[in-house]
């Protein structure tokens, strides 16, 4: 078995990456996604990628899919019932009451996954310290369960108050449900997310119950089809945290599958960062409608303890919260298709997008909106005859007309000035996202390397870096299908977390060590279910804050079990990290910790990026065209290179343009680029 295969099913396209483990060679492919029958669509595309290689030769297949996200966004999951504590039926409907636009009197909250009548209360109550305040009344449970079963519920979520502190009542409720209806699916909030904050925990449990029937159906049939074609191993599935798991584990916790697609892009950047020994990297993925930014330090993408789905205009706090660990992405509505217009005498770009269809004016497909792609075309950055490797021709005249009419004339600008304005303003929006991901988290962007990919990433990356004072830019080869390659770089990873709110002091040690024993056995059993028993790396950490503060900082624990000495080390580490984030520490203040986390990972060995043969040929431009650079006085005669002709070690001085099928690299004046052994373009400013 000599191959590994990554399959990333996206909304529009399915990307494939196939690696030959003997030669290291990487083959990539792209095929349209078929929404009506995803599995059939994937297998069609697979044939063209595999050619004559038999599927039985696959050592491993890693799969990422938007199935779970789509079920939630389209509200197409199963009829789900929720059992909760008496007095708290409305937790999912009340939500956190945040208004993402304070001036909008017509604003509504995000629609929950179930109707109020599918939420039933049971008599019981725990306290925050896990003591039983009111015992569970089993009759009230049976009554509620029977009503829900009569309403057609087959998948249940159970979310009782303070169950993170003591899950006993949730366990009893599960037993009663299974007594009454043995074939029911049951999700306990204390299993799926044993953390405080009742809305987020209930929302997570409900999403899990809601997804379970359909995700099981999809993954089982997908794996079965692969097996009957000769694939002998378990299918590996990508999780939101950037680790893989097998189908059996995901079937029990399908919420882990949500947002697994965007994670893969960041993993590709992380893998490349490790291969090049870059400790500090910003992953910048700019596609058609959005740009996603992620910090990667010491080879690991930064993690978020919660993800959100179905946001209103991408605004934080407007979507359904899911308390599973994800990759910490800042996403904004800035992509090639983002629409440019004039408001109040200023140029405004996005967040609305012309999408892929009808698309920007230059697609000549009925679109009438001027977009970032139109501006990039007018500025000479894009080649109208070589878009998507020549599979599409762009109509530059339409772009010119659109920008003239909609922007240049109203603002009294020339065509170039207006196009440059669009380019600059969308960069300003992305700079905001990049600052949010760095400065907003206490990091200095100038100490990082910017990795630009996605269809529009390499066009904008160098300008953005220059504006932010970032000295190094990395533009990976095959930028358009990077996420599928990212799948091949994924390890098996599980994150478990528990809430235990305590002052950081010696008296907490027995409870915390016992808690980690549980987390450790939880991780071990998840690994065992994936057929992994050794080479498991455990990384414990804690979410900590100064007593009275609410914003947590995650600090790694020095060792397990914890002892008095370790607590001191932990305190020091927290003060340091706090000072790093906020500029000063408060060593005289007591510290609290509430979130305790354990990450278990099993590496399947570092992904080997294929190395290219060294070449001593000097790069020669395939053509020249005028491109716009204010540094050289505007439109400048610029050499254009074809990326496939650039050998290892090839060096180019900006201004220059490098074209490949999936994207275009724009090199600024006073920068120089060199092709490394993996075919990446490394840019430095002089």
């Amino acid at each position, binding site marked *: 078995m000599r191959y590994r295969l990554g399959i990333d099913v996206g909304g529009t396209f399915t990307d494939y990456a196939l690696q030959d483990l003997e030669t290291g060679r990487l083959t990539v492919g792209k095929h349209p996604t078929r929404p009506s029958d995803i599995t059939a669509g994937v297998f069609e595309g697979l044939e063209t990628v595999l050619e004559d290689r038999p599927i039985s030769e696959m050592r491993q297949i890693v799969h990422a899919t938007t199935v779970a996200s789509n079920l939630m966004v389209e509200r197409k999951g199963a009829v789900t019932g929720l059992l909760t504590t008496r007095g708290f039926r409305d937790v999912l409907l*009340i939500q956190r009451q945040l208004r993402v636009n304070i001036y909008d*009197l017509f604003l509504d909250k995000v629609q929950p996954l179930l*109707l109020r009548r599918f939420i039933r209360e049971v008599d019981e109550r725990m306290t925050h310290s896990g003591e039983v305040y009111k015992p569970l009344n089993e009759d009230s449970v049976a009554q509620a369960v029977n009503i829900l079963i009569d309403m057609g519920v087959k998948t249940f979520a159970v979310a009782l108050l303070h169950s*993170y502190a003591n899950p006993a009542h949730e366990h009893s409720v599960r037993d009663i449900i299974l007594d009454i209806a043995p074939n029911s699916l049951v999700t306990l909030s204390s299993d799926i997310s044993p953390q405080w904050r009742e809305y987020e925990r209930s929302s997570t449990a409900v999403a899990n119950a809601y997804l379970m029937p359909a995700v099981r159906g999809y993954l089982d049939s997908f794996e079965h089809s692969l097996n009957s074609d000769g694939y002998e191993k378990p299918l590996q599935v990508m999780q939101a945290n950037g680790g893989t798991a097998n189908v059996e584990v995901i079937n029990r916790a399908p919420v882990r599958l949500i947002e697994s697609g965007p994670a893969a892009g960041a993993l590709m950047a992380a893998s490349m960062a490790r291969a090049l020994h870059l400790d500090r990297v910003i992953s910048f993925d700019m596609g058609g409608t959005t740009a996603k930014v992620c910090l990667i330090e010491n080879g690991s993408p930064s993690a978020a303890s919660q993800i959100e789905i179905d946001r209103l205009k991408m605004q934080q706090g407007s979507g359904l919260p899911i308390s599973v660990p994800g990759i910490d992405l800042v996403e904004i509505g800035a992509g090639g298709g983002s629409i440019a217009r004039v408001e109040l005498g200023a140029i405004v770009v996005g967040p609305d997008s012309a999408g892929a269809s009808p698309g920007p004016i230059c697609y000549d497909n009925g679109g009438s909106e001027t977009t970032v792609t139109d501006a990039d075309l007018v500025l000479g950055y894009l080649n109208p005859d070589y878009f998507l490797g020549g599979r599409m021709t762009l109509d530059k005249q339409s772009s010119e007309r659109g920008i003239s009419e909609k922007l240049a004339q109203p603002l009294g600008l020339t065509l170039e000035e207006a196009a440059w304005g669009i380019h600059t*303003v969308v960069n300003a929006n992305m700079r905001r996202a990049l600052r949010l991901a760095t400065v907003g988290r206490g990091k200095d962007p100038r100490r990082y390397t910017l990795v630009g990919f996605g269809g529009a990433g390499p066009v904008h990356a160098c300008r953005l870096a220059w504006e932010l004072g970032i000295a190094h830019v990395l533009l990976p080869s095959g930028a358009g299908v990077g996420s599928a390659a990212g799948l091949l770089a994924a390890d098996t990873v599980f994150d478990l977390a528990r809430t235990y709110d305590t002052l950081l002091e010696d008296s907490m040690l027995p409870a915390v060590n016992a808690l980690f024993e549980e987390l450790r056995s939880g991780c071990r059993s998840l690994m065992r279910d994936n057929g992994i028993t050794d080479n498991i790396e455990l990384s414990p950490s804690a979410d900590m804050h100064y007593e009275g503060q609410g914003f947590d900082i995650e600090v790694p624990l020095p060792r397990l079990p914890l002892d008095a000495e370790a607590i001191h080390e932990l305190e020091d580490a927290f003060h340091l990290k706090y000072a790093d984030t906020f500029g000063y520490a408060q060593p005289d*203040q007591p510290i609290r910790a509430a979130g305790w986390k354990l990450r278990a990972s099993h590496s399947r060995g570092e992904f080997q990026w294929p190395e290219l043969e060294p070449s001593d040929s000097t790069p020669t431009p395939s053509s020249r065209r005028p491109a716009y650079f204010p540094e050289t006085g505007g439109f400048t005669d610029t050499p254009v290179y074809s990326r496939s002709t650039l050998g290892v070690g090839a060096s180019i001085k900006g201004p220059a343009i490098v074209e490949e099928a999936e994207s275009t690299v724009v090199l600024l004046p006073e920068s120089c680029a060199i092709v490394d052994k993996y075919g990446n373009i490394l840019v430095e400013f002089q």
Partner: protein
Amino acid sequence: MSDIDPVTFSVVWNGLVSIAEEMGTALRRSAYSLGVREGRDFSTALFDVHGRLVAQGNFSPGHLGSMPFVVKNILHEYPLDELEEGDSILLNDPYLGSGHLPDFFQVSPIFFDGNLLGFSANCAHMVDVGGAGPGSQAVDSLDLFQEGLRFLPTRIYHAGRPNREVLRMLESNVRVPDKVMGDVRAQRNANRIGEMGLIALADTYGPNTLAACMDQILDRSEESMRSAIRDLPEGRYEAEDYFDDYGPGTEILTVKVAVTIKDGGFTIDFSGSSPQTRSGLNSTFNYTRAYSYFTLKALTVQDRVPQNEGCIRPIEVIAPEGSLFNPRPPAAVGPRAIMQQRMVDTILFAMSKAAPDRVIANSSHWANPNYGGIDPTTGKPFVYYEMLIGGVGARPTKDGADGLCSAFNLENIPVEVVEATYPVLVDRLQFVTDSAGPGRFRGGSAMRKDVRLLSNEVVFSNLTDRQVTQPQGLFGGQGGPVGSTTRNPDSPGTEPLHSKGSYRLSKSDVVSTTLSGSGGYGSPKPETRKPFSVMSWTTTSP
């Protein structure tokens, strides 16, 4: 001034707004009190050299009225030549600031190459500033001096160094000094972020271009606000509403609003409203302006024009001195936060004649009581600042949202976090069945919350309204039911508590708050309301 190129203008404007937002992120992340952290009761802003507001972060609308004037008020006390880099000036006087003592402003001058470039400022609600009642917003105060510590403009950081004498005085006069001092430091952080951001903009584009952009931002915003006002029919539009009272045994208060639309400007006049009260229920003129600006912006440009001084130029607010909406010092003002909903309601009702498709029916009234006492597990004082939000009034095209507010913004504090932080147990938090005002579109449902006390000797300062006067419906829609506060509901010792009373409660007492429901829009007759249309996901029917 108009020779700034549009690209630079776009980028600078974008930059100023994003700096104001970054200031807010820094403040929220390093704040100590739940009110700032989760309640989002703060705002941030940048000013030009003339002290004009050029960008404000979109946080609490309550500070919209005071923020534009705060730098000018501070310059009055500290002339420019006395200010130095690294200074921060504190101000919480309700009449110069945001209407009650807990709102602390900090203003910092920003210098570039030795010249003044502008100011960064922020305002945050302190959980306690001393005075008679925990939380410093009891209704039964007779004057400002009972409500806590008051700072006219006072330099608390001088050239980067803290003014220890003043800070020690502050620390020793508040109930929860750790939280207050932590928040004061967080405010200083936020201003520092603003300072660095503005300097970076000046460095890139030059201070002169930056100043020219600021001028242009104000002019463009004003133009755009005026043109939105011109879309509305000119005329004078009036409405009247009420507050239940201003404490146990007091009389009803009248809220009178007349909005005049003329020549691309709004005049909003509170003449005819009740005189100022001998209680804390008084809205300083700055606070009255804040909610006037907020409501008129919600009806016109909303967030399409970022907030700055230009947006408010076309709006004139009138409230006679000595009235409920422009009291004379030293009238007490602590609980003014519950007055904002009525200002919004009444302005919207006045405007219903001018713009029936943009207004909504009366929303539920919220509750903002404080519980103070000693936590038996730690032996330390606690102040539990409660914020319970009702429903939004019915809209012209759809039902009102349940359990959301229409006058401000906050994030509720999870029950599990509340119980781990304060000695209380929440018995229930739920929608109130049938609390929506009927209508072609019904109002949003109200909420009920029952809080059981786990400590003795608790001082409970209640703060809510609409327990006597109903939230009204519009265009034939009916009103929502009134709310109530009850001690020990559904038990033999049950008794009603006054919406603005202060009480001493003890362990095991339960305080049950039911908010009023919100009003409906349009007639609820079957020929206008489709049967079963109430079965949307938000329904509160079983």
